């Protein structure tokens, strides 16, 4: 096994270039610098990683694409009886191995939520599993946080290594890389030179310093009972959800939101079955075929979002809350709705609540 390696700043493109020969390397990159939108895209020679701040969109789509074709189908009519037909199905082809380079601990933690649902459950999602198995995460120790970040409040932290395969520690002159899983070790020969003692020491200092940080106030992980108590408090939810404009951006930028919709798009006798992101903020999410909707307004929908993340999910999955504290939903919300505030408010003035 190789020890820790070092990549100097100016060697990074070279390393990425080399890695991308054998696998798809997704990096956070600014597609239009002026607009400050950073998203994960496959590495290309003229595409540079932006590592000094959190990406606008998490790397969710690497494993869980916004739209994914599950299968192609085509109906073949019986020549003798055109009413009869048989259906030929064709799965999507295999996926290639992927390295996500430069994700942050919160981004990676999002996939742990996914894993509970799509890998460890009674049912395994083959489409998710297929990509998940072939994906490695090279995660960056997170030195930059802002007022919307709250990873420590959800039981994680800026130096949380859970779910990562490689560990990237930024030091003055570059990055120190460390393999965390067996799968990652094969990649180490590609990861620059061996790190010097001094670099390793510097990296340990950074790691230590960052690990000591507590990002976000309070503890949001034990809110399940509070939520249940509040469930019927319509006035509370009205006030909490009032400013929400029912757009879906919080769910789209969320590394843990895993809901999807499946539709068949057919033309004549051929078509494909596609799976696309869905959002519980949308009216259609729970609309029934009859037209009835059990969550008719944003009050019920917003309550569900909180409940799902902080109560239903941890109840079902060993206490794990479906929130990674990345703060994107707060940062990107057009009306700056603060999910932390809502969760903390669950506790307040409880004596007034008529249960």
């Amino acid at each position, binding site marked *: 096994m190789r020890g820790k390696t070092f990549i100097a700043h100016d060697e990074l493109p070279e390393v990425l270039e080399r890695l991308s020969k054998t696998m798809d390397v997704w990096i956070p990159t600014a*597609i*239009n610098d*002026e*607009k*400050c*939108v950073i998203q994960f895209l496959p590495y290309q020679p003229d595409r540079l990683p932006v590592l*000094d*701040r959190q990406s606008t*969109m998490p790397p969710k789509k690497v494993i869980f694409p*916004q*739209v994914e074709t599950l299968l192609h189908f085509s109906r073949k009519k019986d020549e003798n009886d055109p009413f009869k037909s048989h259906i030929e199905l064709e799965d999507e082809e295999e996926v290639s191995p992927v390295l996500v380079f430069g994700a942050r601990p919160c981004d990676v933690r999002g996939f742990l939520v996914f894993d509970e649902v799509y890998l460890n459950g009674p049912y395994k999602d083959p489409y998710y599993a297929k990509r998940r198995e072939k994906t490695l995460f090279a995660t960056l120790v997170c030195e*930059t946080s*802002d*007022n*919307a970040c709250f990873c420590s409040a959800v039981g994680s932290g800026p130096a949380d290594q859970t779910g990562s395969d490689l560990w990237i520690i930024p030091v003055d002159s570059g990055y120190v890389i460390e393999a965390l899983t067996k799968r990652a070790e094969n990649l180490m020969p590609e990861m620059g030179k061996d790190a010097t003692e001094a670099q390793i020491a510097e990296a340990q200092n950074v790691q230590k310093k960052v690990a000591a940080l507590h990002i976000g106030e309070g503890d949001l992980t034990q809110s399940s009972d509070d939520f249940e108590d509040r469930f019927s408090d319509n006035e509370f939810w009205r*006030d909490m959800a*009032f*400013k929400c*404009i*029912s*757009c*879906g*951006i919080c*769910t*789209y930028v969320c590394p843990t939101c895993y809901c999807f*919709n499946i*539709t068949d*798009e057919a033309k004549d006798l051929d078509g494909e079955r*596609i799976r*696309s992101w869905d*959002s519980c903020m*949308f*009216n*259609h999410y729970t609309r029934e075929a009859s037209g009835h909707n059990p969550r008719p307004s*944003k009050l019920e929908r917003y309550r569900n979002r909180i409940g799902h993340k902080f109560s239903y999910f941890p109840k079902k999955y060993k206490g794990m809350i479906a929130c990674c504290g990345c703060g994107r939903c*707060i940062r990107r919300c*057009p*009306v*700056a*709705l*603060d999910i*932390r*505030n809502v969760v903390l408010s669950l506790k307040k003035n409880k004596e007034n609540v008529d249960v």
Partner: protein
Amino acid sequence: MPMDEKTKTLQEDFEKNFADLELVIGWETGFDRLHATPVFIRQPSELGKLVWNPLCSQNLSGYLAKNLDASIQEDGKKIGICVKGCDSRSLVALIQENFIDRDRLYIVGIPCEGTVDLRRLMHLKPSLENVRKVDIEGDEAVVETDQETLRFPIENVLARKCLRCLYPNPVIYDTMIGTPLKPRISEDKLYSAVEKFDTSDRKQRLAFWKTEFNRCIRCYACRNACPLCVCQDNCIAESRKPKWLTQRDGIREKFLFHMIHGLHLAGRCTECGE
């Protein structure tokens, strides 16, 4: 009038008139002092939350058309709402289209010097921390942090829509806070960007829009923030019957979605920039 004073006048005005109001819609400081967020006040004791500053970008008039159904109408009491110049125009449009009843509103208009585009600000100063206050003084945006006071030329940090705003002053109001302002742009220059765009050839224009729409993630925030996008949950972009769009995320679907948005707002848009 400085921002603090305006905030104070704003609070006082609502306090004076609160007896007639069931609800006040305004802005408060968000999760940090760099963010403002809509606030809905039902108790006079909470009026202290109200703020006015160049971060109050959200157009609150949309809440009136979309979210206030008949049920919250309390015996003849009115809804108080704060509007900037652009917001007031949306309000007029909504009143004209009979989505809201002018008589139910108590409108406090605030002449607006422009709102700060946080993305532009963060681009200039990515590590902006511990902000205390953001204000506009003449042609400069002033950002006070715990450590220092920063000054930026407004053309670098103001939302672009604000730089070409013709209506800094509310066009409809019951009370106005502060004195009317002059637009920062003359009418003849208003469409200079569009004119410039018009000089590009068709293929460049198509490429431009493809690039823009390619970034779209179909989260529908643009639509939901738009005060005049009144279909909301029934938008044909999501409807399966009729089915105008599929769930695919290709450029076609995004393009058509934005065409729907564009054509549905043709002749109605008040250029609030939401």
